[in-house]
């Protein structure tokens, strides 16, 4: 067991009073929540609520006009390029793979900034996600669920301590979603903090320790899955949509 370099009281990710606007349109308004060490938090809300924008603000891809983001108690890097060295990995809402590169090469990209041969690490993560047989195939040629797993492998290969997953279950079938939930649980058990955006209710209820609900750029609810499920505001804004129809 290594001794954490920062006290347990400091959250891994702390978002406070975050405000983002594009032109005149306010996309995030006073958004605050935290993700603790080894905690899995789901960020849910209707399409266009601003979930991906929260990720973009954490990654330094959009500049907030108010509030800020701290990672392990320090301000988040201003440049996306420094995220991996700050221990942060992110998957994209789409796939974001390098289609013409092989699966192995895709997974090697985030490691290519540091010296040495990283093939063994890359192959280990591929093995863990059942991708060994596909290592030499071009990523663009794989079926969708496999490509989704390559994107996950590429995020995990740097052994992040904060993992941001943007709709990781999107487009997957039940068996693949179960496997994904298993992987997320494993990752969290190893001490990694996970912030996941996902619409799939069962997946979210299964993996999340806490749920933050975003609607029109504001946090309308926050709590354990049980608490959020019963919240009338949430039902009205989001879960209710599914239940009513």
């Amino acid at each position: 067991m290594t001794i954490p370099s920062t006290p347990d009281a400091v959250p891994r990710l702390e978002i406070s009073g975050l405000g983002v606007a594009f032109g005149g349109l306010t996309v995030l308004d006073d958004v605050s929540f935290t993700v603790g060490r080894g905690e899995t938090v789901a960020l849910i809300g209707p399409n266009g609520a601003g979930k991906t924008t929260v990720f973009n603000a954490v990654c330094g891809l959009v500049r907030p006009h108010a509030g800020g983001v701290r990672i392990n108690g320090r301000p988040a890097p201003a440049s996306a390029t420094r995220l991996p060295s700050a221990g942060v990995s992110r998957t994209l809402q789409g796939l974001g793979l390098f289609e013409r590169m092989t699966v192995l090469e895709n997974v090697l990209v985030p490691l290519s900034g540091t010296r040495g041969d990283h093939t063994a690490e890359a192959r280990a993560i591929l093995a863990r996600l059942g991708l060994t047989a596909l290592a030499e195939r071009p990523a663009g040629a794989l079926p969708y669920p496999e490509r989704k797993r390559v994107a996950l492998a590429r995020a995990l290969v740097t052994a992040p301590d904060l993992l941001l997953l943007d709709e990781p279950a999107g487009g997957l079938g039940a068996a693949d979603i179960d496997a994904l939930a298993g992987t997320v649980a494993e990752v969290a058990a190893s001490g990694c903090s996970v912030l996941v955006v996902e619409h799939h209710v069962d997946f979210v209820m299964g993996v999340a320790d806490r749920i933050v609900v975003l609607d029109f750029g504001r946090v309308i609810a926050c709590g354990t899955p049980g608490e959020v499920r019963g919240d009338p505001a949430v039902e009205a804004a989001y879960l209710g949509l599914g239940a009513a129809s």
Partner: protein
Amino acid sequence: MDRLVFLLSSGLARGAVLALFALSLVIVWRSARVVNFAQAAMAITAVYAAFAITAASGSYWLGLLGALAAGALLGALVERGPLRFVRGDDPLSGMIIAIGLVMVLQAGLAMAFGPEHRPMRAPFPERPLMIGEIPVLSPYEVFVLIVAAAVMCALALLFGKTPLGLKLRAAAFAPETSRLLGVRVPRMVTIGWMLSVATAALAALLLVPTELGLNPHAADLLFVDAFAVAVVGGLDSPVGALAAGLIIGILDSLVTGYATAAAAPLAVLVLLTGVLLVRPRGLFAAADRRTG
């Protein structure tokens, strides 16, 4: 028959130089999404550096290294200097900078070295070797083929097998995603420019002894042909540059030999038009596009 062998083999040597220069255009296109219209002027500036180094040291080989270094330096300076200020969605401003650069470099070279053609000696004899009665490649053409092949292999290894090459490819095809993965995209763009202009400088250096001599405009025609090569092969495709370079080099040589030199550019133009009509993105263009 003898004539055909001779024309084919000298076309091959010219094609190799064309392919090399076209490859340099492909490299800069892939890494920065610009067609560098200043490539010829930048390459010939580097050849003047080689000329000066060879004149001072007496060594062709030092001059060759000097051309590579000067090309890389010039590529970095141009990318970090004028082009940094026009980065964006407007291809026109980059093009205008390139045209301005052509004028500045060529006028500067003419002022510094004079506008005349300066003879540049090849490091090997240029008379064709005879196989039996048939004239084939000259020793210099063999040298050109070997150097071109070696550089292409080195570039293929660099891009295909090294961590730097992986980052260069990643940054070229999905800059935004690459940044999230820790790739320093602006640095990769600079390195792409350095590799590109160094390659172009080498191609120009190999060409000059076979032409009238060194002159600020000595690589202008090479650029025009190589641009046609890159478009025929597909601006995104190194393999396309190689194949189309050899095809156009040989076509050029055959038309010059059997018809007249004046008809050669016309033949290239016909080929270019034909390919653009049938496959607008080039013979070897890949199906996928660059993403964010």
